[in-house]
């Protein structure tokens, strides 16, 4: 019981720090790819601390509450994951939390954030099958949904689940809101969508949104690590390396591709999910 508590507290403290540093690293690497020097590593923290100090303007009263619900559910997901609970449960709570963000966007009635909100729903529709398949793959490979038992398996689960890994990493680009799948937020300014779902979110609420994103990213990368980690302690090092490589890959994809239309995103994600995870599923059912 005590070790679960310690793990959760470590997650609560370390996840935003790691998430912010990864974000800063992402911005520096992006800048270097574009031939620029880029901002300092701690820039995301400067941004968030500034946002907390600015005057709070909420277009709708319920907006702040919805953003905070989004904040707490995403953190709760990460806590459940670190405590070693059911991976399926984690993803269901993650998706429930994501709908709060959709509401926070839609409640303002601004055309940009309403459009961002409906696009966010489409994104959820795209990545949800891949994520559910991943949970299923974990169960078929290890015979359990529990994270604490999954990390103690004899071999790294990626040995059984390469196709599921591909599908999961593919949907990670959508989940992390990176180009070409940044349909709902458009993180590069001066586009047709302004800032998408976050257009009407400013100051303190935006700071909460950023911190939530850091927690969420760390949880999602934690699932990537779950593919690698086995009962050998050295596998943790391998997992860290794989996670960093995935982060670099996401930055590379982000900087080399333009935004897709939603119908293309939907078909592409579902095809990748069905082909790679589906084939893997069939093979796994035959050999297991």
């Amino acid at each position, binding site marked *: 019981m005590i070790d679960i508590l310690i793990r959760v507290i470590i997650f609560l403290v370390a996840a935003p720090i790691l998430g912010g540093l990864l974000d800063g690293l992402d*911005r520096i690497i992006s*800048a270097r790819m*574009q*031939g*620029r*020097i*880029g*901002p*300092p590593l701690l*820039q995301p923290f*400067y*941004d968030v*601390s*500034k946002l907390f*100090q*600015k*005057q*709070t*303007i909420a277009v709708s009263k319920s907006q702040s509450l919805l953003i905070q619900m989004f904040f707490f559910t995403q953190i709760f997901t990460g806590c459940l994951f670190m405590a070693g609970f059911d991976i399926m449960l984690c993803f269901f709570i993650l998706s429930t939390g994501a709908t709060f963000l959709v509401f926070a966007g839609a409640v303002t009635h601004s055309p940009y954030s309403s459009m961002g909100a409906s696009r966010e729903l489409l994104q959820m529709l795209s990545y949800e099958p891949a994520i559910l398949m991943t949970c299923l793959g974990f169960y078929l490979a290890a015979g359990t949904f529990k994270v604490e038992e999954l990390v103690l398996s004899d071999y790294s689960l990626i040995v059984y689940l390469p196709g599921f890994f591909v599908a999961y990493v593919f949907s990670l680009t959508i989940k992390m809101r990176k180009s070409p799948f940044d349909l709902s937020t458009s993180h590069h*300014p*001066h*586009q047709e969508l*302004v*800032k998408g779902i*976050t*257009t*009407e*979110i*400013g*100051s303190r609420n*935006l700071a909460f949104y950023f911190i939530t994103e850091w927690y969420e990213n760390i949880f999602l990368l934690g699932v990537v690590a779950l593919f690698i980690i086995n009962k050998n302690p050295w596998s943790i090092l391998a997992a860290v390396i794989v996670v960093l490589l995935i982060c670099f890959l996401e930055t590379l994809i982000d900087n080399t591709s333009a935004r897709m239309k939603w119908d293309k995103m939907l078909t592409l994600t579902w095809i990748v999910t069905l082909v790679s995870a589906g084939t893997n599923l069939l093979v796994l059912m035959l050999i297991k």
Partner: protein
Amino acid sequence: MAKVKRSPWLLHYDGSSCNGCDIEVLACLTPVYDAERFGIQNTGDPMQADILLITGGINAQNQAVVKQLYDQMPRPKVVVAVGVCACTGGVFKDTYNILGGADTTVPVDIYVPGCAARPQAIIDGIVKAVELFQMHMDNHEEFLKNPDEYMRKNHPEVELKKGDE
């Protein structure tokens, strides 16, 4: 008070500019000048912006837009007029459709002259705006109590500083 000046986010609005200044503003973000080194981000969203960058003069059609953009920005905020048209109206000053510089509609803090304003001058202006942004933040409480008096008290000082350098 924490250093907010490390993270100034810009909102760039093109009034009735000929696009000369706009191109120079965007040039600030390119690899040659790389304004992101100072944490400067060009956001298209007034709700998230700290510094309003206006290029071009004000006319009857864009006056309401500029006013609304300014009102949507959360306090504290700084306005920078880039280019001679945004400063005074420039060569279009006496035209029937131009009301004048940006200060006819919103309180302008920093004037960056030039036609078109050079990227170096724009970055200089933004750096000054960032200092002012930090100062506003430091005195936020005082500012909230009586904005007019605060502006009267603090703005001449900034103008003086500008002349000294």
